[in-house]
C-alpha cells in the first residue's frame, strides 16, 4: 500500500495536479506518525502508512497556511473522510478544490492501554473511504458495508455511553467535575478538530465575554458544553480531541452523547452523506416534542 501511495502522490505533484500532499510522515522511527506537507515529488518517500496514523488530516484543509500553498491532496481514512463530507456540506471547500486520497484501514490492533482509539475502531462503519478520488487498499473481508449510512453498529457504538448513563445524575456530575477540573484550557481539543475552524472562537470573544476563559471548574464546564454543542450533528467521532487532551479527559463521552441524540431522535449521522441536510440548520414538522410542557 505504501508504495502505491507514494507513487500516486509523486505523480500528482509532478503533473502539477496538486501543489501539496497532506499526509503522514515519521521522521524518526521512535516518533508517532505525524502530519507532513510534501510539495516536491522527490519528498514523497517521507510518506508512511501504518496502524499509528491517528491524526485527522482533514483539520488542515481549512487552515490558511495550507491554503496558501495551493491545491492540496489530502490522505484520509474512512473516519477522516466523514469530516471532509461535513466540511464540504458547510462550504469550507469546493470538491474540485481538493484531491482526496482514501486509505482503507486494516482493523487497527487494540493497544491494550485503554487508548480510546481502539474503542472507536471497534464500532467503525466506514473502514473504506467512499468518495475519494483514488482509494488505496481494500477493506478486510467481513468489515462493515461500504457507503452504508445506517447505524449497523449502533449497539456497540454507544456502549460506553450507555454504561455511563446508568449512573445517577449526581454521580455523573461528580464524574465530570473530577474530569473537567483537570482541564487547563489549552484548546488542543479545539485545534485538532476538523470542525473547529472558526477564525474567532466563542471562547475568545470578550466584548462581552461569553464563556469564562479561566480554567476554573465553572469556566471549564462552560467551555466543554459550548464546544460539544457546537459539534452537535457535526462531530464525526474521530476522537482526536480525546487523544490530544494532555490531561486525558474523556471527551469522547460528551461527543457521543450528542451523536447518539442525533441518531436516535433524527436518524442522522454526521459525514455519511453530503446530500442529507445537516441536523442543526434544518428541521422537520414531525420532530418529537415529548419533553415540551
Amino acid at each position: 500500500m505504501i508504495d502505491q501511495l507514494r507513487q500516486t502522490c509523486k505523480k500528482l505533484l509532478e503533473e502539477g495536479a496538486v501543489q501539496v500532499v497532506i499526509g503522514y510522515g515519521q521522521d524518526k522511527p521512535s516518533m508517532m506518525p505525524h502530519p507532513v506537507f510534501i510539495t516536491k515529488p522527490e519528498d514523497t518517500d517521507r510518506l508512511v502508512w501504518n496502524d499509528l496514523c491517528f491524526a485527522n488530516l482533514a483539520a488542515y484543509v481549512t487552515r490558511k497556511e495550507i491554503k496558501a500553498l495551493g491545491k492540496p491532496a489530502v490522505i484520509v481514512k474512512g473516519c477522516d473522510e466523514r469530516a471532509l463530507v461535513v466540511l464540504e456540506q458547510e462550504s469550507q471547500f469546493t470538491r474540485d478544490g481538493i484531491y482526496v486520497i482514501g486509505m482503507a484501514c486494516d482493523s487497527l490492533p487494540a493497544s491494550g492501554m485503554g487508548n480510546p482509539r481502539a474503542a472507536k475502531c471497534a464500532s467503525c462503519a466506514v473502514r473504506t473511504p467512499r468518495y475519494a478520488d483514488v482509494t488505496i487498499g481494500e477493506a478486510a473481508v467481513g468489515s462493515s458495508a461500504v457507503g452504508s449510512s445506517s447505524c449497523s453498529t449502533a449497539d456497540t457504538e454507544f456502549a460506553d455511553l450507555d454504561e455511563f448513563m446508568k449512573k445517577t445524575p449526581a454521580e455523573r456530575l461528580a464524574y465530570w467535575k473530577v474530569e473537567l477540573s483537570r482541564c487547563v484550557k489549552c484548546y488542543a481539543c479545539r485545534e485538532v478538530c476538523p470542525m473547529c475552524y472558526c477564525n474567532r472562537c466563542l471562547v475568545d470573544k470578550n466584548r462581552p465575554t461569553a464563556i469564562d476563559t479561566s480554567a476554573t471548574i465553572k469556566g471549564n464546564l462552560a467551555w466543554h458544553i459550548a464546544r460539544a454543542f457546537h459539534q452537535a450533528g457535526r462531530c464525526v467521532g474521530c476522537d482526536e480531541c480525546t487523544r490530544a487532551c494532555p490531561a486525558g479527559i474523556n471527551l469522547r463521552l460528551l461527543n457521543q452523547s450528542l451523536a447518539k441524540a442525533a441518531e436516535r431522535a433524527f436518524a442522522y449521522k454526521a459525514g455519511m452523506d453530503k446530500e442529507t441536510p445537516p441536523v442543526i440548520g434544518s428541521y422537520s414538522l414531525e420532530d418529537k416534542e415529548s419533553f415540551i410542557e
Partner: protein
Amino acid sequence: MSDVISKNDLLRLVDQWLAEGKRVIGPVKMGDGVILYAPVAVSGQLVLDGFVHPANSIKEAVFPRSETIYTYTFNGQEIELSDVEPDCTECIVIGARPCDAASLPILDHLFNWDYQDKFYNARRAATTVVTLACTEYDDDCFCTSVGLGPAANQGSDAMLSSAPDGAHGTCVFEVRALTDKGQALFGGKTGGKTSAAEIKVPISDGPAKKFDTVDIETFLKNNYESEAWRDITMRCLGCGACAYNCPTCHCFDIVDEGDAAGGRRVKNWDSCQFGQFTVHASGHNPRAVQAQRQRQRIQHKFRIYPEKFGAILCTGCGTCTRNCPVGLGVLNTLEAIAAIARASIEVK
C-alpha cells in the same frame, strides 16, 4: 555518608505533612491512566515509579493556571477594590523530576524582573521541592542538551534517589538535603545514616546530547526570515498543549470576570501559539501566521531569555513533545534546526 528513608516511612511523612495542613503535590495516576502532578489527599495516591515523566509540570505550585489578583464590587457609581492576599499555604512538591525543579530558578528571573510578582514570590517561598532523581529516560527527554541531567540539583531542596533494596528489605530512598528548606523537612526524620557503599543508587546517565545550544543560538541570530520556519512548523495547530504543560513557559493573560454586582481580576495562563495572542486593539496581528508564532517561541526560549537573564528557558523535560498532538514540540523543532545548522545550508 547519606541518609536513607524507606518508602513506607516516606509515605508516613507525607501523611503527616497533610495532617499538618500542608499542601502536598506529586505524581498521581488519573482516571484513564495519564500521570499528572496534582495535589494529593492521602500519600497512597502518589506514584513514584513506573513512568518517565508526568504529562504536566510543577509550575502550578508557584504559578497557578488561574489566580485572582484582586476583587471589585460596584456600589452605585463607586467601585470598591479589594486586595487578595497571595496563597501562602505551605506546599511540598514530592517526586518532582529534576528537569521540573530546575525551572523554578529560571522563572525567578522573570517574576522578579521589572516587577516583583508578590503572588509568585509568596508561593515560591512557601514551596519546598523534593526531587526524585531519574533512573530512566525516553526518546523525548533532552535535559542533557540544555545543561541539566537526571540528577541535576537546580531548584531542588532535597533529592531522593531510589535504591532497589537497602538493608531493610523494602524500597528505600537516599535523601540528600540541598537547602535549609530541605533540611527542615527531612532533618531527623530519616531512617539513619548508611555509608555510600552500602546502598547502590542507580542513576541513569541521561540521554545523549541531541543538539548544541550554541549552534541553535547562531542559527536563531542569522536566520530570522528563513523559510525553514514555515516548513518545520507547518503542522503546528496552535494549541497550548506545549506551553501550558511546559515547566518554564510563563505567559499570562489578565482578564476581568464578573457581573453587575462585581467580580474579580484574574491572571490566567496564555500561550504564544494561540492565533489571538498578539492581536492589537487596532486589529493588526504582527504574528498572524503559525510559523511566526513558533519562531518566536524558539527565539524566546533559546536566544532572547538567555540574552536577558543568562538562562535557557527550557529544561529539556520533553513534555511539550510528548503532549503535542502532531508530534512537534521543542525537541523536534530544534533537531530540525540543528540539522540545517549542521548542513550549513544557507536558506533564504
